[in-house]
């Protein structure tokens, strides 16, 4: 049984314990989507776990999977195979700069590495294929060449002489445990290479920058890796490793060519989809459950379609040369299940391209069912959550935490039925919550025509919906006008730049990045919001290629 509209509207609490705002939003060049990430006091510095700037980046789940596939041709990893990512500021890649493997994570990785190696070395044909020759001993030409080449590919840099010697020794000793079978030596040395921190972490140690005395830059191999993981979420390919070996990757022209080459790859499209899922909080969508007493369960196939549709608005916005089209696109592609969810007659089993204006007041990603669903509660819409999403994720504004004396228990406001909007309006008169709600609710009202799973509706609890609202001085009525207000907001370009900056650099934004961010933002806006141009600009920037002095 539901308590219906008569129930207590403890919405200040129900909007979720993570939101509260009593002093208004604020932004500064160095602000962050992560509240309270101060390095002072006794807080944990999200950039380094326990002080200092991190130079180590644990490969994320997705990166590990792609890397293993590219390196060994293994089957894709399943999420349960490896430790969950730590997500910081919305991005697993940022969390990777503070994360480490737990005891369970170590064990899980060990299984993956051992399975992968066994698969190769327990098959007489596969191992010759993999190694490229038949070793007669672990120190013959075949084996030595194998260690150099697999070492380079696995560690994304050549092994030092000392390392090579150690791994040959490992192969010798383990081979001796199996009647001097060289294949066994190769097997356990390969297992070691894949278990090594030099495989599992990317390192930004850097070197003296010859063109700028006193400064440090990434080494050629570090730069090749960083570029590759930023744009394809996978290990550098041979072309990148060659450019690193030759040192040409430090040249602007070569770096630009490589960045553009990677951006044109299908791996980049996958990586961009990954960015889009994280940036728009779409990752959990396929697992989302709704309150079955209020909303019929959504089939997982539909949830996946919803995720993909929302994600594609973003990917195509990046690919189109104008990121604003994420929010303003008037066309979408729908499979039959999603079309039916939108109340459209399905036209056969295939995907149909639909003009959104035919779908009552829909435009761009904000009105896509996937995004509307992740921005709702399990049993009802939440103008507050939706407004919070716009502020925090799309405009990079900060909403302060509630003070300790904030009331979370609220008395019922009325026994009379009312619309959610009315209840929120009344609720906003309570000074304990009004500061918070007035920042977010008026934005979210623009999306009230869409229910908690993104279906269009004219009524809420029997009341006509009023979808008018306001975003920092811009009034709007309905989702289309809200979407325009978002892309015209002065913080929009800066925010999407900042989000990409963090994702691609695998680290949280720092105050010292303010100038770089400003320059990149100006570039993005000047190009008419061309995200691919921004991506190349970032790669070519000092911010991407050099290390701050404290990183030395």
């Amino acid at each position, binding site marked *: 049984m539901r308590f219906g509209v008569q129930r207590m509207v403890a919405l200040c609490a129900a909007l979720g314990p993570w939101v509260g705002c009593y002093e208004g939003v604020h932004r500064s060049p160095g602000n962050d989507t992560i509240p309270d990430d101060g390095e002072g006091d006794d807080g944990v510095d999200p950039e380094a776990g326990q002080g200092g700037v991190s130079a180590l980046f644990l490969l994320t789940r997705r990166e590990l999977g792609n890397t293993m596939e590219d390196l060994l041709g293994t089957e894709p990893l399943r999420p349960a195979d490896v430790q969950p990512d730590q997500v910081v500021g919305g991005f697993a890649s940022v*969390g990777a700069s503070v994360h480490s493997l737990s005891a369970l994570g170590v064990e899980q990785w060990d299984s993956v590495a051992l399975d992968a190696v066994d698969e190769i070395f327990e098959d007489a044909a596969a191992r010759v294929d993999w190694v490229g020759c038949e070793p007669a001993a672990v120190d013959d030409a075949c084996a030595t060449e194998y260690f150099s080449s697999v070492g380079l590919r696995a560690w994304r840099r050549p092994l030092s002489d000392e390392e090579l010697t150690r791994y040959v020794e490992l192969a010798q000793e383990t081979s001796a445990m199996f009647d001097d079978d060289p294949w066994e030596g190769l097997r356990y040395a390969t297992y070691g290479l894949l278990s090594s921190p030099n495989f599992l972490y990317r390192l930004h140690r850097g070197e003296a920058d010859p063109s700028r005395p006193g400064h440090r830059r990434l080494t050629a191999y570090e730069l090749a890796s960083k570029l590759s993981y930023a744009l394809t979420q996978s290990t550098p390919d041979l072309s990148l490793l060659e450019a690193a070996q030759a040192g040409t990757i430090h040249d602007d022209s070569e770096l630009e060519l490589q960045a553009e080459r990677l951006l044109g790859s299908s791996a980049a499209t996958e990586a961009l989809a990954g960015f889009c899922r994280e940036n728009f909080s779409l990752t959990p969508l396929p697992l989302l459950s709704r309150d079955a007493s209020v909303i019929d369960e959504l089939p997982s196939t539909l949830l996946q379609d919803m995720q993909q549709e929302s994600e594609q608005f973003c990917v195509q916005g990046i690919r189109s040369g104008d990121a604003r089209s994420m929010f303003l696109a008037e066309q979408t592609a729908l499979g039959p299940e999603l079309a039916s969810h939108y109340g459209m007659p399905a036209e056969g089993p295939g995907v149909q391209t639909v003009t959104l204006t035919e779908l009552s007041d829909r435009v761009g990603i904000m009105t896509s069912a996937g995004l509307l669903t992740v921005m709702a509660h399990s049993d009802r819409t939440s103008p507050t959550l939706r407004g919070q999403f716009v502020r925090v994720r799309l405009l990079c504004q900060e909403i302060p935490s509630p003070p300790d004396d904030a009331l979370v228990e609220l008395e019922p406001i009325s026994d009379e039925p009312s619309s959610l909007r009315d209840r929120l309006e009344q609720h906003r008169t309570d000074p304990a919550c009004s500061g918070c709600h007035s920042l977010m609710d008026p934005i979210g009202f623009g999306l009230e025509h869409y229910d908690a799973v993104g279906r269009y509706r004219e009524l809420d609890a029997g009341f006509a919906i009023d979808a008018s609202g306001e975003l920092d001085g811009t009034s709007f009525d309905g989702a289309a006008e809200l979407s325009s207000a978002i892309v015209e907001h002065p913080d929009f370009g800066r925010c999407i730049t900042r989000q990409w900056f963090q994702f691609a650099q695998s680290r949280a934004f720092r105050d010292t990045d303010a100038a770089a961010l400003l320059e990149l933002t100006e570039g993005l806006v000047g190009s008419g919001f061309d995200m691919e141009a921004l991506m190349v600009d970032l790669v070519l920037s000092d911010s991407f290629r050099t290390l701050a002095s404290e990183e030395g």
Partner: protein
Amino acid sequence: MPSRSLSRRTVLRGTVMGGAVMLHLPLLEVMLNTHGTALANGEALPRRFAVWFYGNGVKLDRWIPDGEGANYTLSSELEAMSDLQDDITIVSGTHCPVDGQVHHSGQAGMLSGDTIDLMANDASTFRAKSVDVLVSEQWAGDAAFDLINLAIYRDPRYEIGTPGHISYNGTGFNPNEVDPGSLYDRIFSGVVPDEPDPVDTSARAAARSRALDSVLEDFSALNAGVGRGDQVRLEQHMDGLRDLQKRIEEFETGAGGCTPPERPTFSEEANDDTRIGEKNAIMSELVARAFACDMTRVASIMHHTWYSPAFREIGIGTQQHGLTHDEPGDQPQVHATATFVMSNLATFIRSLKAIPEGAGTVLDNSVVYAVTDVSDGRTHSKDDMPIVLAGGAGGRLLRGHHIHAPDTSSFKVMMSLFRALDLGIESFGAGGWAQTEPLSELLV
């Protein structure tokens, strides 16, 4: 999960040779002194520590027992513990002092003595190490696994952050197992009959261990060139690697007399919240056996957090968290969920009590610290925190009492447990919240 179990077998592949292999370090009667109160060599029987956490509090007016001291009457929410009254102590009245009004600040407070770093998208994180980690560090290396982490229900959206985790190791959360089969495989795989393995088993264990020696050298080299924060992360990783290496070596020579349980056949979608009680019973049994076989001495059990299920199996269709805020009146449905959760806790305590050990049971040598994030879900209050303690800590912890301790920090309860377990941890709580003295009534 066929593929998963195949993968798990790999860890211990070759230790089996087609027959049941016994685990190391069982507590055979022969190893005990004649009174069954200690090991024959004079060492005390091992102590165990379990954190049992649940979200959204209770209904205090139906939870706090009537009467204090040894003569108390269990309340309706604790009725399921009536057969355990001599094994538990109820602590009421203490407050969790940390900052923060949200659920997970209470969660972090009760479990780590500090508040959280509030982050976007619920990826919030504890600031301090959690108590299960603190205790496991004190006992590092004593058992095959220093710590096991499991969850009865974890919202599938929250593989990350405090909605899905209660164990923090200083660099991030410790992932928890939600699948009983996976947990079983992790702990007991290799001790069940398996297909014959073509590889020479002891050579394989030796080869893997030798390879990990090289890996540890890579770590040392890397460690020397990075900052302190990164070193902490690498150390965390290395600790796990050394433990793994130790297990690989031990299984090679393992011998003993501990019989593992059957592999649970329970399988479910992680999102299924219709069989929580059943899953809780299976997981409880696994933890109890893991304690008895000395596979681990510390367990962190997350029943659920404030990202809670609807307890459909008792006829409630609304998620518990929403219910605590929305249900009018005296909240009979919230009361029903709290009663159900307490009955799940009773099941866990009973599992420990069911296994004899020496002159008593595993429970006698254990401490269960069962806490929640808020005392009342509707108000998010951290006053009057409901705490259930179970087990005797080898005779050091008070049992069979209701202790009402108003104006007392909950952290003194934790200090009492540290003392009862003879741990060298001298304070609990961050900064001004630190407590150095126990709640002395709890110690015997």
